[in-house]
């Protein structure tokens, strides 16, 4: 998901103060978690790099084939296409979700009671599985049996998932439907932490609502924006379930993002070598994006956003 860096050693007493009989027991407490994470996280991560230099059909023997998989993947026009679709989905879903989430979050941060009710209802899409959401929208958008046909509104009777541009649009919409509520709640939390005194001072200076939003709210939300964007961007690399059930990467290859590309090469075409190479690219893209966003947030993103307030 995201990198929310913590300066190691913060609030930590010097080793000597925690000396005594318990001190040597502490590292052992971390061992079980470490073992699970190494076994099913770190080793597979190394494994995916190793497997990208082999040929394997998923059942038989694994044979080392050097750079064959990489050559095949890098020469395949499918790769730039998958990268492009991944980027498109990432950028568009960020562009739709971020402004909407900020506006809704700012609104929800008010104190009226009904806004609490809003927050409760907003959360519902987060409870549904991506598979359930995809299935619902597939039924809802079906040109013959869906909503458009039922309401007899021609505008809604489109081959939503059969036209490449429409299918991308549907994916963006469904992603927004699923995640805008969550990000709104993040921003709601962020806005509530801005000291009232800042707004009051601005009001005394005669700042209007719009001015206050751009001069106080938005700058003060900087770190919330970075956290939320990191979750959105890195999360968008893992939109597998939703797209797989909704379009299976189609029509054609219109919504074939990297994760779908990896699955199809590996588990449908039984080419685990090239699929592993795609997985390596996926990891690389995720790391680069997380680092970029972290750089944006300055070196110490966990410092108070209120500094200098």
């Amino acid at each position: 998901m995201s990198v929310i860096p913590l300066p190691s050693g913060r609030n930590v007493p010097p080793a000597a103060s925690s000396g005594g009989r318990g001190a040597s027991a502490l590292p052992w407490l971390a061992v079980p978690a470490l073992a699970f994470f190494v076994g099913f996280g770190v080793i597979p991560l190394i494994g995916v790099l190793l497997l990208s230099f082999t040929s394997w059909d998923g059942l038989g023997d694994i044979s080392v084939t050097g750079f064959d998989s990489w050559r095949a993947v890098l020469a395949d026009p499918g790769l730039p296409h998958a990268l492009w679709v991944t980027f498109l989905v990432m950028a568009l879903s960020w562009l739709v979700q971020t402004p909407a989430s900020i506006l809704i979050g700012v609104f929800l941060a008010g104190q009226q009671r009904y806004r609490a009710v809003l927050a409760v209802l907003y959360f519902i899409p987060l409870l549904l599985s991506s598979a359930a959401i995809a299935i619902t929208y597939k039924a809802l958008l079906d040109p013959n049996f869906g909503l458009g046909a039922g309401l007899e509104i021609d505008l809604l009777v489109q081959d939503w998932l059969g036209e490449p541009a429409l299918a991308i649009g549907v994916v963006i919409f469904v992603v927004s439907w699923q995640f805008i509520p969550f990000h709104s709640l993040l921003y709601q939390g962020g806005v509530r932490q801005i000291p009232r005194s800042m707004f009051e001072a601005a009001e005394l200076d005669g700042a209007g609502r719009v001015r206050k939003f751009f001069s106080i709210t938005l700058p003060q939300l900087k770190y919330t924006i970075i956290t939320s964007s990191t979750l959105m961007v890195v999360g968008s690399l893992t939109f597998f379930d939703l797209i797989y059930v909704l379009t299976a990467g189609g029509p054609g290859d219109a919504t074939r993002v990297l994760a779908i590309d990896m699955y199809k090469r590996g588990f449908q075409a039984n080419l685990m070598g090239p699929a592993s190479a795609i997985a390596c690219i996926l990891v690389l893209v995720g790391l680069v994006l997380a680092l970029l966003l972290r750089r944006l947030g300055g070196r110490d993103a966990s410092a108070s956003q209120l500094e200098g307030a």
Partner: protein
Amino acid sequence: MATTLTKEPSRAAAQHARPPRRRLGERPNWLGGTISWIWLLVVIVPIYWIVITSFKSQSNYYAENPFAPPSEPTLTNYQMVIESGFIRYFVNSLVVAIGAVAPAVAVSFMAAYAIVRGGGSRFLRSTNSLFLMGLAIPLQATVIPIYLIIIRLHLYDTLLALILPSIAFAIPLSVLVLSNFIRDVPKELFESMRLDGASEWGTLWHLALPLTRPAVVTVTIYNALAIWNGFLLPLILTQSPEQRTLPLALASFQGQYSINVPAVLAAVVLTTLPILVLYVLGRRQLLAGLTAGFSK
């Protein structure tokens, strides 16, 4: 980030410190309000449609206005879903969710406690960095080696095959959130426990755990949600219908009965019901804890 200012013993206390009511007479926020209400409609309308349609018969579905409540409500869709093996899938999902969440939260809590209390140790510092790195990596990218490992362990097509990687995937975020909360426990309390001669284990159990219970509940619900709704691992690591979990069953049910929209939607409702119950029970803590944990 509020908690970087407030140093209450637990974040739950900080959550109650709400800012004062906005002054009366401030002009209403029309833009934000309009968008919020429109988006509420966008969220609610499909959910309303799912629920009412799931009670319609297939023939009524085509005859009626899609937004009209069912004229002859029927439970046949639910009956059909249950008869097509959903109890089995439900039990499978439950086994995987409990089997993965309980150990994941337990080992994450122990690790988070060790990382906060023993931060001076190089081993614990690098363990923490490793978990943080895990947050940046789309773990789905590791499914091919996981598939290989599961095959070699002769666990393919078992529920244990889903449980083991699910635990690993849950650890980075759980450790991050839990350690953020344990860090807010005043050092003096740890110190007095130590002077009383309590062991680290006793301190974890009798001090850290009770004081961070909201965080533990949050992490538990969050992980349960992610694992309950997980799709990729079951898709790759199981094949027989007997080992199916709900999301996968849902997808194959839809493939089978795509024409019978009400039945498909009844299946959607049934798979979401347990999560809805969990949400109603733990809503306050989930909302408060999740945003606090992420906005750290």
